[in-house]
Structure formats: structure tokens, C-alpha cells
């Protein structure tokens, strides 16, 4: 076993965050490394936000431009779709749902990790979440936007989408409230708005910090408006903590409800491969799984490029990998249970669907899914692998691929060989790849803008889990007492709710 302890961590901040420590049997590992003061945390987090616009790092500039280009391409593609109709896709009988729905489920699933981290881990008092929640929440919002665009476009006649909403009209036409597709409209919209509210509430104290430190007028105005007059008084913190807790409680059911309803889109049907009772919890586990993988994919490069390794340490990476292992195994349980019951049921059609999935024309997709979702995450049983940044990145990437394929397998393989053998067909995409790339463009464009202008770490929350926030903290060195203003914030916040 390595002898590295917190006291003997290397000095180099580029190395320090990647060193894995032995898990303490007693007490808990420090969540932030390097013995930083509150002020140093602020400096670290806001470094990229506070650069003048002209001095945006080239990598970030390039990323935003690339994302923007993808987004623009998406706009063009939507125009083409408007003009031509969904005939530009490979969808045809019997495969009426394909990449449009696959992309939707893929993106909406990714969002779930953000909500799990910010709401459920908050309710479980998992303090390590503070280093990753802001990031993950932002990911949620942009992923839900990408998902919404997929689902809005899949209707074909996009200009008729308002019929999804229960608006009175002269035709006396109402949406079918018994359809899960209609429930989706409400579920996804609720999800988007609650997530946005939650994200914004958490951002308010950090916006205030940005406002107070701003040197130029537009920044003072921009962040000042966003900070909603936050002054950091004890009363503000009390309200903030209450609001945060209530929003967390409201968001927690959303972690389950949104993907449950997405699973209903499939499972209320009578189609073998779609209709099975385990779908709701199975989809939720898969969503969290894919979301954590996406958080890793985004976070691992960012923590290196933005110099945040002391805040997002290998401990955080390891914890997330453990959740990936857990949820990946849960997904494996669901695959196995579905397979088992297909044969336990004695229903020939169920049995056929699963044989066809694993050995039929789309078996390549099925085995891609199984390898990426169930088999490769099992490598995270090894501590060496789950504490390695490179391995984490590669395996998380596999999960992203595997989870896209999972939705493809569910949607397409169940449809392509339906009950009428003469209508069997092999689905081949036509222009859909631009659709998928376009949603990635939208996602990365917004996400990188977020990285450029908003604090990617919830500073105020990270400070509250640092030793300085403990009312019994001994102080910086000998008799240095409490630090500047920010210490008082955190202590006040802590005092207010303990």
C-alpha cells in the first residue's frame, strides 16, 4: 500500500489532485487539497471567468467556435427537415421510431446525473457533491435542451407542436391525456424549469462574488443583475438554505419521474422488448449511469485545463466511478431480468425478440451495448483503474457509446421484426448522423459558454465543506483567527442551520 497521506501529498498542484490516498478507516479524507484559504478557492474557480473577453484561452475559443459551428449546422439541418420532412430519415415501416427517439432518450438520460448529484446526494448529505454539482447541473440543463429539440423535431410537422399543449382551440381538439407521450411534454418541461431554478438558486451567491470582484462596468451589471441583490447577510443565507433544501426535495422525485415517463413511452405498449414492468427503475438507473459518464467525460479534461485538481480530486473521480459501477451493474441486472423473464414467461414472442436482439441482424448493436454498459464498467472493481484519470476517461467514453446503443437496441430491434413477417425490414440511417452531431453542437456550444462565463464550481458550497467552515476550526496557523469576510459567510450559514 502506498504511504502517501494528506500530509505528504506532493506540492505540485498539477499532480496533487491525481494522487490517490488510502481510504481512511476512521475520519474522512479532506475534500479539498492543498490547504487553500477561501480566497484561494475563489481565485482558482473564477480564474477563467474573470479573464477579459479578448484573452479567452485559445482552446476554449476553438471549442466554442466548434460547438457554435455544430449548432449552426444543426440550425441548417432543421431548416432542411422543415423543407423536406422526416423523409430525410431512414424511418420507415415497421421502424417508425429510430434516431429521433434514440437521441431524445440519450440526452434526457444524461441530464439525470445532474439532478441526482444536486438533489439526492444533497439530501443524503454527501459533501463531496459540492465539487461537481454546478457542472453537472449545467450539463443537465443543456442536455434537456438537446433532448427537447430532438423530441420537438421528431413530430415531423414542427409548426404543429403547439398541439401538444392543452391550449383551447376552435377545432375543440385536446391532446390525449392518456398517452405517455403527452405526459412526457409535462415531465420534460417540469424537469427543465425546476433544474433551471435549482441551478440558478445555487449560482446566486457565486454571481455576487463575481459582481463584487468585477472591474468593468458590463460585468458589474451582468453579474449584478444575476446576483439579485445578494449581500451575503445571515438572513440571505437562511433563506438560501431553506430554498435550496425545498428545491432539492422537489427535484428528488424528478430524478425518478422524468425517465420513468420516458420508459412509459415504450413500456405501456404491447410490443415485446418494450413492454416489461422493470422498465421504469431500469431506465432511471441507466439514465444516472449515462449522466455520470458524461460528467466524467466533461470534467476530467476541464479540471486539468482549468487548474481545478485541488477541488475536483481523484477522490471525486473515484466516487463517481463507483456510482458508474453500481448503476452499470443495475442496468446489467435489468438486462438479465428481462432476458430471464422472456424465457420464464413461456411467451414465444418475448423469447424471439431477445434471441433476435442478441443474434439477429442488429446483434452488433446489442453486443456493443452489453460490452460498454455492463462488461467494461466492471473494470472499476479495481482501485487502480477507478483512480486512474486515463482509465476513467476511456471507460466513461465507452459508457456514453453504450448508452446511446442501448436506446438504439430497445427502439429499433424491437420494431424491425414485428408480428407480420412480410413487413420485416432493416433500418439504415440516411442523414441522421447530422442530427446527432447537431445536438452535440448545441450541447457543447452552450456548455463551453457556461464554462467561460459562469463559475463551474459551486464556490460557496465548496467552502462550506472545507475545514475553515467548521465553527471549531483552529485558524490559519498560529492565532491567525478567522479569514476575511467569506469565512464569516460560511460560518454564519453553518450556524444558521445547525
Amino acid at each position, binding site marked *: 500500500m502506498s504511504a502517501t497521506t494528506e500530509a505528504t501529498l506532493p506540492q505540485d498542484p498539477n499532480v496533487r489532485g491525481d494522487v490517490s490516498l488510502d*481510504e481512511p*478507516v*476512521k*475520519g474522512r479524507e479532506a475534500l479539498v487539497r492543498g490547504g487553500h484559504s477561501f480566497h484561494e478557492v475563489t481565485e482558482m474557480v473564477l480564474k477563467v471567468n474573470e479573464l477579459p473577453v479578448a484573452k479567452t484561452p485559445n482552446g476554449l475559443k476553438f471549442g466554442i467556435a466548434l460547438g457554435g459551428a455544430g449548432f449552426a449546422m444543426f440550425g441548417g439541418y432543421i431548416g432542411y427537415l422543415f423543407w423536406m420532412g422526416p423523409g430525410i430519415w431512414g424511418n420507415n415501416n415497421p421502424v417508425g421510431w429510430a434516431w429521433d427517439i434514440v437521441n431524445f432518450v440519450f440526452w434526457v438520460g444524461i441530464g439525470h446525473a445532474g439532478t441526482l448529484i444536486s438533489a439526492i446526494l444533497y439530501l443524503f*448529505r454527501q459533501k463531496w457533491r459540492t465539487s461537481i454539482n454546478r457542472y453537472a447541473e449545467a450539463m443537465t440543463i443543456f442536455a434537456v435542451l438537446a433532448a427537447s429539440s430532438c423530441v420537438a423535431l421528431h413530430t415531423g410537422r414542427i409548426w404543429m407542436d403547439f398541439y401538444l399543449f392543452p391550449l383551447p382551440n376552435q377545432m375543440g381538439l385536446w391532446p390525449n391525456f392518456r398517452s405517455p407521450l403527452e405526459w412526457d411534454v409535462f415531465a420534460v418541461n417540469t424537469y427543465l424549469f425546476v433544474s433551471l431554478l435549482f441551478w440558478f438558486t445555487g449560482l446566486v451567491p457565486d454571481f455576487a462574488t463575481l459582481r463584487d470582484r468585477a472591474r468593468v462596468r458590463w460585468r458589474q451589471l451582468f453579474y449584478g443583475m444575476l446576483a439579485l441583490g445578494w449581500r451575503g447577510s445571515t438572513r440571505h443565507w437562511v433563506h438560501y438554505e431553506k430554498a435550496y433544501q425545498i428545491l432539492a426535495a422537489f427535484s428528488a*422525485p424528478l430524478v*425518478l419521474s422524468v425517465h*420513468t415517463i420516458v420508459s*412509459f413511452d415504450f*413500456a*405501456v*405498449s*404491447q410490443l415485446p422488448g418494450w*413492454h*416489461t*414492468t*422493470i*422498465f*421504469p*427503475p431500469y431506465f432511471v438507473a441507466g439514465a444516472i449511469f449515462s449522466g455520470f459518464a458524461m460528467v466524467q467525460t466533461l470534467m476530467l479534461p476541464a479540471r486539468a485545463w482549468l487548474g481545478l485538481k485541488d477541488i475536483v480530486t481523484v477522490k471525486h473521480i473515484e466516487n463517481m466511478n463507483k456510482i458508474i459501477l453500481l448503476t452499470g*451493474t443495475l442496468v446489467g*441486472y*435489468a438486462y438479465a*431480468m*428481462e432476458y430471464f*423473464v422472456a*424465457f*420464464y*414467461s*413461456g*411467451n414465444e414472442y418475448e423469447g424471439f425478440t431477445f434471441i433476435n436482439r442478441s443474434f439477429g441482424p442488429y446483434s452488433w448493436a446489442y453486443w456493443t451495448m452489453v460490452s460498454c454498459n455492463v462488461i467494461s464498467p466492471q473494470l472499476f*472493481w479495481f482501485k487502480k483503474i477507478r483512480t486512474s484519470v486515463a482509465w476513467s476517461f476511456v471507460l466513461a467514453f465507452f459508457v456514453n457509446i453504450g448508452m446511446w446503443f442501448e436506446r438504439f437496441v430497445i427502439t429499433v430491434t424491437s420494431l424491425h421484426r414485428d408480428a407480420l413477417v412480410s413487413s420485416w425490414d432493416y433500418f439504415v440511417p440516411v442523414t441522421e448522423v447530422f442530427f446527432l452531431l447537431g445536438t452535440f453542437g448545441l450541447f457543447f456550444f452552450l456548455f463551453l459558454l457556461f464554462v467561460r462565463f459562469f463559475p463551474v464550481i459551486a464556490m460557496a458550497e465548496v467552502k462550506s465543506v472545507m475545514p475553515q467552515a*467548521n*465553527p*471549531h476550526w483552529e485558524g490559519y496557523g498560529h492565532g491567525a483567527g478567522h479569514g476575511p469576510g467569506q469565512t464569516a459567510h460560511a460560518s454564519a450559514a453553518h450556524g444558521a*442551520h*445547525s
Partner: protein
Amino acid sequence: MSAHAPSKPTDINIPAGSLWTKMPVIGGVLAVVGLGSVLGMAGGEHRARAMFSYLFAFEIFLGLALAALGFLLIDTVARAGWSVVIRRIAETMAATLPLFAILFLPIVTIGYHELYPWTHEHDTVLERKRWFLSDGFFMGRAVFYFVVWTMLSLVMYRSSLAQDATTDEGARNARVRKLWAFAAPGIILYALTQSFAAIDWMMSLMPHWYSTIFGVYFFAASVQAYFAFMALVVMALQRAGVLKDAVTSEHFHDLGKYTFGFTIFWAYIAFSQFVLIWYANIPEETEFYVMRMHGGWGAISYALPVLHFFVPFFFLLSRHVKRKRTGLALGASYVLFMYLVDFYWLILPNFKVEGQPETHFHLVWTDVMALVGMGGAFFALFSFLLARNKVIAINDPRLEESLVHENY
């Protein structure tokens, strides 16, 4: 957070003369009387009815013991700190699992054909299921489950007892790390065995019916009941004069929160199963609900969402209720009662009364006697094991963290 390190609790042995020390005898007597009368009944013409009572009571207590095992494994893997003060109690509950192997015997001997129609009926669908529902495989699986549960629970239990006696910190820490490594794959074994045990022993009562979520249903229901049960057991132990200061309102608050959380989780799973089967309306799946939604069972079916979800949800929502002993005791007892109702509703409709419609609801004295007997057997072993050791894992490295645990 407290400024001072708390001193270790001293009221950690069940005092001689308390009811808990007499419980092995009392429980044993109840077990003999209760199970004896039920099995006596099974010897007569009401064999099937008596064995359904027996299976019902068996699943109730098996569920609690299994959920205790699941809790321990998950708790260990999650490195939970708050729960150390109640861990020994959970370990002791889980350590009763080997007893269930013996209690299972009447089910596969006296009750086998009465309970499980697939053992003697024949039709096309059942023939397709023979690869799974066959005598040899069924028995083999049961043996496997009990071996796994015995292994998992005894390793957790013994390792924790050994920790009490370990004075060397290095040796103790090594033991803790070993347990971490053991518990993680243990969760997989636990999840698979408890799911398939639920399928084998409860789902196959209706051999044509199937539901992929059934194993999760069993998990949700039993874990919800477990947290309620744990809260009540701890309160009873405190009355007997142990852990009076160690287990505080903070721990009860957490037990209440888990009961509350799993109330929602149970409702979520139960609703998912129901709505998907109702919506798709496929005959081989709907038979489960058709049978339960008419006649006498209908009232229970319609009551379950209200009484098993809405009532405990709103009752346990309050922080105040969860932190006060009386409030939590009331909520926990109620949740446990609804757990009984839920399992009764899952198992008993499969018993067909001759000359009565399928939906005929029937509650007979053997149901109560089976519960009393099974509870007697469980508590006899549980209290016997508990009284032999300290009721708290006194040497646990996270004990201090648990003692000063606070919700905020």
C-alpha cells in the same frame, strides 16, 4: 458538531432480568405453539389454507432479516458513519437468516403441492417453463440462496464480533478493509438471491404470471418495513436500558427518513408495475390484478395506494414526527402493519376456496398464529444472539462519528 469527543457508551449489555433475556424462552414457546398449531392444521383437511398462512408469515420475517442483510452490505460499501450505533442490531437480525432454512422446510415438504400449482399441473405454458420451474432446480436454488445468505450474514456478524475483541488498531483496520472488500460483491449476490427467491417463492404461486419488476418490489417492500422495524426494536431496547444515550433523536430521524424514502420507493415500484400491466392489458399479465381488484380483495387493492402510501407519506413527512419517539413509533408500527397487508395481498389471493369466487377474501386464525409463531422463532434467536454480545459495535472506528451524528 460537538466540540468534545464523546465517551463510549457503557450501557451496552442487556441487563439480566430484562424481558430481552427471557425472550429466547418466550419466543421459543410462541414458536412451538404458533407454528405447531399451524402445522397441526396443515396435517388435517385445511392443509392448503394453513400452509398459505405459514408462507405468508415466513416471507414477512424473511423479508425483514434479508433487508437487514442488504442494509448492512450497502451501509458498509457506502462507508456510512451515522448508522454505526445500530449496526450490531442489524447484524444480529441478519444472523437469524440460517434459521429460515429450517423454517423453509415445511414449505417444500408439507406445503409444496398445496402452494405451488406448477409442481403438479400441466399445460403448454407450464411445459415451456419446466426448465426453471422443476423440482430439482427449485430445491437446488433454495439451497443456494440459504448458503449465500448464511455465508454473507455470518461473515458480517462474526467479523463485527471479532472487532469488539480486537485491541490492536492495525489489526482492526485491516479487518474493516477486508469487510469493505467483502461487502461490495456481496451486494450482487444479495440482489440476485433476494430477487430470485421472491420469484421462486412468491411469484411462482401464480405460475403463468410474470413481472420483471417483482424482485425490486420485494426489495422495496421489505426494506421499507425493515427501517420501521429497526426503529421499534431500538426503542424497545432503550426501554430495557441499553444504548440510552448512544442512539439519539438524530438516529431515529434518519431511520424515519429511510422509512419515509422507501415508502415513496415502494409506491413508485408498485405503481410502475400496476400501470404498465393495466395499460397494456395483456391477459397473461392482467390476471394478477383482475383477481385482486374484485370482490373482497378489491377493497384491499384500492386501499393500498391510500393506506400504504399517502397516509404514511404525509404522516412521516414531518421532521417533528420522525424525531419524537411516540411519533416515530406510531408511524413505524403503521408501516409494519401495512407491510403485512401488502404481503398478505401478494400471497393469499392464490389460495382458492372451493365453492367461492376467485376473489373471495378470507382471514383465518392460522394467519395470526403463523405470524405469532414465526415472530416467536425470529425473536427467540435474535434476542439470544443479542444478549450474548454487546449491543453496539464498540470498537468500530466510526463509532465516534456516529455518536455525535447530527442532522442539519
